[in-house]
């Protein structure tokens, strides 16, 4: 079989590389407990069969715990992990600090040119690829076609925020526990702030002007937050201020959301009939815009990187090569079906007819990813890169604090004005502490 030969060739290469290194090597992998990573853990046997001299040790943690652990370890050069699962926010910062091992020397068969340009660009610093994308995502609108039809509306391919508000109003049936729109409200830089920052881009808002002055006192931010607040308080589910990605996914799968604007990877979960009660009813559209030339979608890739302190960089490279290869994608397809392969990293996947026919969301995912531009995230020029984040070390801390203010506003504990005022003050304070 075609696949077999490919695997055989890959394993021959890998064995050669590994025997050159040492006899028995242990690779410790820190990863997040997302579905795709859990699946990878289940397929480990394929790797160890090809590389009998490499033992894989998994440290699977919840996202927040994972971030805390790997950041702590790499900042102190603790050397606890050989492979770390990190995102497009960490890679440029850590790469700049010289904390990561360059992956430029991965073999040609791995085909770096096949990686989607937007994703590859986000993981490259000064021409060095510092992490290999495991799956990539943008964000888009996922909606219930049946509810949309019942409301007498039709979702355009590229909706505006006004249409989203109109549709949310029409779909909401609080008696029947159907909420027109579900959005992230849980505080955290990777939770509500990822969504709100991306959304604010489409409203013409930005985090900092070109002198690194925080912009929460600007008109576009007030417009963003007011719009979000109106949407959520009128048509959102109860307890929205504690809902993150996982909570919303669960709500959507239970059929309680009319629309959900979130990560494109969720598309395969909400269309999976074993987990989702609405699998056959989900439609997709691009993230909304406001006619200003930017849509409210983000760009992210969960990626595998090797910390400079690893004592088994070669074995770790062998593993990363396996986990992010086309062969791995084929392996998942063989075992779990094409719809479940890790999406959003390779051009070849989106040219594969098997994938396109199995994944109704493929086209919209690719269009969303390609339309995100980390180098020019907002309408106005800004001094930073990153769509739903600002690629500076202080961002995670600041955005979590800001996110808590916005979350408190959503919970009705303070007004939008108060939240923005506090956000402005604390961001200015933190930036000063960081020496800007």
């Amino acid at each position, binding site marked *: 079989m075609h696949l077999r030969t490919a695997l055989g060739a890959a394993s021959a290469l890998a064995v050669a590389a590994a025997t050159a290194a040492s006899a028995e090597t242990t690779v410790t992998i820190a990863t997040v407990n997302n579905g795709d990573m859990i699946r990878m853990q289940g397929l480990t046997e394929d790797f160890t069969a090809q590389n009998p001299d490499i033992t894989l040790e998994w440290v699977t943690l919840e996202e927040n*715990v994972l971030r805390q652990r790997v950041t702590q370890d790499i900042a102190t050069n603790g050397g*606890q992990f050989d492979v770390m699962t990190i995102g497009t926010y960490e890679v440029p910062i850590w790469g700049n600090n010289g904390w990561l091992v360059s992956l430029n020397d991965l073999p040609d068969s791995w085909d770096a040119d096949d990686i989607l340009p937007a994703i590859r660009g986000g993981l490259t610093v000064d021409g060095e690829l510092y992490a290999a994308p495991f799956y990539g995502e943008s964000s888009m609108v996922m909606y219930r076609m049946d509810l949309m039809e019942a409301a007498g509306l039709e979702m355009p391919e590229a909706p505006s925020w006004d249409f989203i508000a109109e549709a949310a109003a029409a779909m909401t049936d609080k008696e029947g526990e159907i909420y027109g729109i579900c959005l992230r409200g849980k505080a955290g830089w990777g939770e509500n702030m990822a969504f709100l920052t991306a959304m604010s881009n489409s409203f013409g808002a930005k985090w900092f002007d070109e002198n690194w002055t925080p912009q929460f006192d600007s008109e576009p931010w007030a417009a963003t937050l007011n719009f979000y607040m109106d949407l959520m308080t009128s048509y959102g589910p109860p307890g929205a201020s504690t809902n993150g990605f996982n909570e919303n996914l669960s709500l959507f799968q239970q059929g309680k959301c009319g629309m959900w604007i979130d990560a494109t990877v969720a598309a395969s979960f909400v269309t999976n009939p074993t987990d989702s009660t609405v699998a056959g009813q989900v439609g997709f559209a691009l993230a909304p815009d406001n006619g200003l030339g930017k849509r409210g979608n983000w760009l992210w890739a969960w990626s595998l990187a090797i910390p400079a302190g690893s004592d088994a960089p070669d074995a770790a490279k062998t593993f990363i090569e396996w986990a992010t290869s086309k062969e791995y994608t084929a392996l998942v397809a063989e075992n779990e079906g094409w719809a479940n392969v890790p999406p959003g990293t390779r051009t070849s996947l989106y040219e594969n007819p098997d994938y396109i026919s199995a994944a109704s969301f493929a086209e919209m995912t690719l269009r969303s990813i390609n339309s995100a531009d980390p180098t020019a995230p907002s309408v106005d020029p800004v001094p930073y890169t990153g769509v739903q984040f600002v690629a500076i070390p202080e961002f995670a801390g600041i955005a979590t604090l800001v996110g808590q203010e916005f979350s408190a506003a959503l919970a009705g504990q303070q007004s939008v004005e108060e939240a923005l005022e506090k956000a402005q003050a604390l961001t200015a304070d933190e930036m000063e502490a960081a020496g800007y």
Partner: protein
Amino acid sequence: MARTVTTRRKAINTALAWAIGLTIFFPILWTILTSFKTEATAIADPPVFLFFDWTLENYAVVQERSDYMRFLWNSVIIAGGSTLLGILIAVPAAWSMAFVPSRGTKDILLWMLSTKMLPAVGVLYPIYLIFIQLGLLDTRIGLVIVLMLINLPIIVWMLYTYFREIPGEILEAARMDGASLREEILYVLTPMAVPGIASTILLNFILAWNEAFWTLNLTAAGAAPLTAFIASYSSPEGLFYAKLSAASTMAIAPILILGWFSQKQLVRGLTFGAVK
């Protein structure tokens, strides 16, 4: 005369106590029940209590994902090791405080307790650096030492209060008979203090088992105990109540069973010198 009560009074007591007891226990019971449901049943509206198709599927999924026995074994070693080491160091200290008290004894005791006030999050960075230097990261011995140090003040204090209740004359008598210090501790004191030592061991085993900051932050794959096991089951993608319940049940079951079997010991022994 012993306290006699009417049957009626006893019945009221019983009903009230059982109602309260079941209420307090309910969250645990609910978790155990949910662990046997399917994900869909786990969020059924209205909730189902007992009449559902019981399934072991969640346990199978959890076991397949993570090697439970390894986490369990690490928990046992770390909690057990730190408790035993703590007892070995604390017994002599508590002995001397109880039987050869000086003016400073009370101050030393209170100072020991105050070392527990150091906020763990504040000193994580320094401790992490020290652990790197000593090569103790992700080792069981490293965690045994840290948890022992954290709980040592409690152990010393508990033992001290038990030892103080032992009449000094008995030791005097033993000494008259020519017992050495070692013999005195080994043959006279220890047997008398066994109930106290036992409940000290129990309490500290529980505290060490449940410690979730250091055990999570100082381990990776090798020494990770059940607290790290549970950290991979909090809010994964999609429906997860049943799997979370199964993982939770697996994490707390060993200590819950141990606690139940030794319940009498704990009830009798947990005084901290409160009884005088």
